[in-house]
């Protein structure tokens, strides 16, 4: 201990403090502060870059999800549209079918009615024709018969004869 104290030099101690404290302040101003600032700045930069990359990734994912959603929606819409079209088609076909049936029925009925009226007219005409014809025939017959007196008399006599029997 005594040797240690003897070794202790005040001059060295003072010089050491002066040099060391001056060194602290010089390095603080010219080295440590700029170094630590630069390192901090760099670290902040890296942190920010990582953060923005993360954000971009998230945004990408969102975008992708959105796209997928849109795609799914579009697909759904397409499906529903196809379905609707099919329905419309079927409905149209059905409608056309019923309409055609109705029209056909109507036409048949019209035709039937026309046929009936035609028939009736034809029948009436036929009747008229037949009556005229029969009248003619009868007239001719009558004319012929009546022109043959003998036969008439005989006929009348016969008819009279039948009545007597009754």
């Amino acid at each position, binding site marked *: 201990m005594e040797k240690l104290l003897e070794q202790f*030099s005040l*001059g060295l101690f003072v010089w050491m403090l002066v040099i060391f404290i001056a060194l602290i302040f010089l390095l603080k101003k010219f*080295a*440590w502060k700029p*170094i630590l600032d630069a*390192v901090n700045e760099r670290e902040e930069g890296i942190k920010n870059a990582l953060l923005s990359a993360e954000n971009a990734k998230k945004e990408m994912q969102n975008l992708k999800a959105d796209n997928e959603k849109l795609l799914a929606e579009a697909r759904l819409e397409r499906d529903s549209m196809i379905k609707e079209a099919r329905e419309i088609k079927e409905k149209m076909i059905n409608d056309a079918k019923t309409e055609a049936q109705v029209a056909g029925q109507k036409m048949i009925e019209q035709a039937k009615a026309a046929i009936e009226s035609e028939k009736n007219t034809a029948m009436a005409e036929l009747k008229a024709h037949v009556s005229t014809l029969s009248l003619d025939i009868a007239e001719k017959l009558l004319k012929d018969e009546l022109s043959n007196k003998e036969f008439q008399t005989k006929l009348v006599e016969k008819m009279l004869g039948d009545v007597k029997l009754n």
Partner: protein
Amino acid sequence: MVISKKPLHFIVAALVAFLPLVTVANPESDSTAVAHNSVTTETAAHHEEESKDLKTEIKEFINHHLQDSYDFHLFSYEDDAKVEHHIGFPLPVILWDNGLQLFSSSKFHHGESAAESNGNYYRLFHGKIYKVSSAEGEVTVDEKHHATNEKPLDFSITKNVFMMLVVSLIMFFLFTNLAKSYAKNGGIAKGAGRFFEPIILYIRDDIAIPNIGKNYKKYMSYLLTIFFFVWFLNIFGLTPLGVNVTGNIAITGGLALVTYLITTFTANKNYWGHIFWMPGVPAPMKLVLAPIELLGTIIKPFSLMIRLYANIVAGHVVLMSIIGLMFIFKNWIGSSLSFVLAFALSLLEILVAALQAYIFTMLSALYFGAANEEHHHDDHH
């Protein structure tokens, strides 16, 4: 702890493995000395004396190395004419003794003569400057071998001060360059600073933030400076330049004092509350605890001072002793073994250099954290 255990285990194992070899080698050389003794007493005695001289010389050399000095001595050698040459350069001596005395340490001629400045004479004695009456005056000593001469106020640029200035300059250029490279390269470090950036971040993320909390920013400059200052000085201590800055009690004391002052002056109410009036204990206990806690605030930086000092000094002493063993063994087994041992220890010391810097920084951060703690846990008392 951050030390990976594997290399430590290996080094410890290697040390244990080498230890018996070294201890066996020692008596062996002694036994040869005894054998010589039986043959020719004279040469054996001579050999004994020489090796003792060598031992004391090594001891002195280590002691000299551990101390601060007034010149930057790199190495010395003896030429053929047995004249010693010292290679190095002198440093300025600054004394306050009836005015400013400024002269080069080369005037001491490595302690061989007194230096003159403005009519005053100074002499080196055990690495310290003492005032002597004349150019021929010697330093007088008392019975305990302490110098009794007057000691002038000494603010010399010693080897340690010089090394601190060098390290400060290196740190300043290194880290200002790193700071500039961020601006130039768009936030990415370039050059040598690139190596230090992860360490700076480590100090921030694993020392400052976990220990101090949200107020860590105002302590960052101090923590970074002290870590690199201690680390660089520790590493310089391992180079062949032979500097021992962080193994000097004045240096570690100064560093610990700064930590203590920062802790004390940035402490919040809660910190002082826990020292002078510990919440949650009976009043008489509070009176007992207050001086203990107050003493604790001083013991903490004191332990910082001693820990760094002792670790570095121990490392230097052991390493230099093992290197010194090479010259004592003077045979190829012992010397090469101590070379291997010195190499392994050097690796360990590199680890210790970083570890002690880390521990100093870590504990400083811990004390700052304690001074900044909010009293959220008051309810539990």
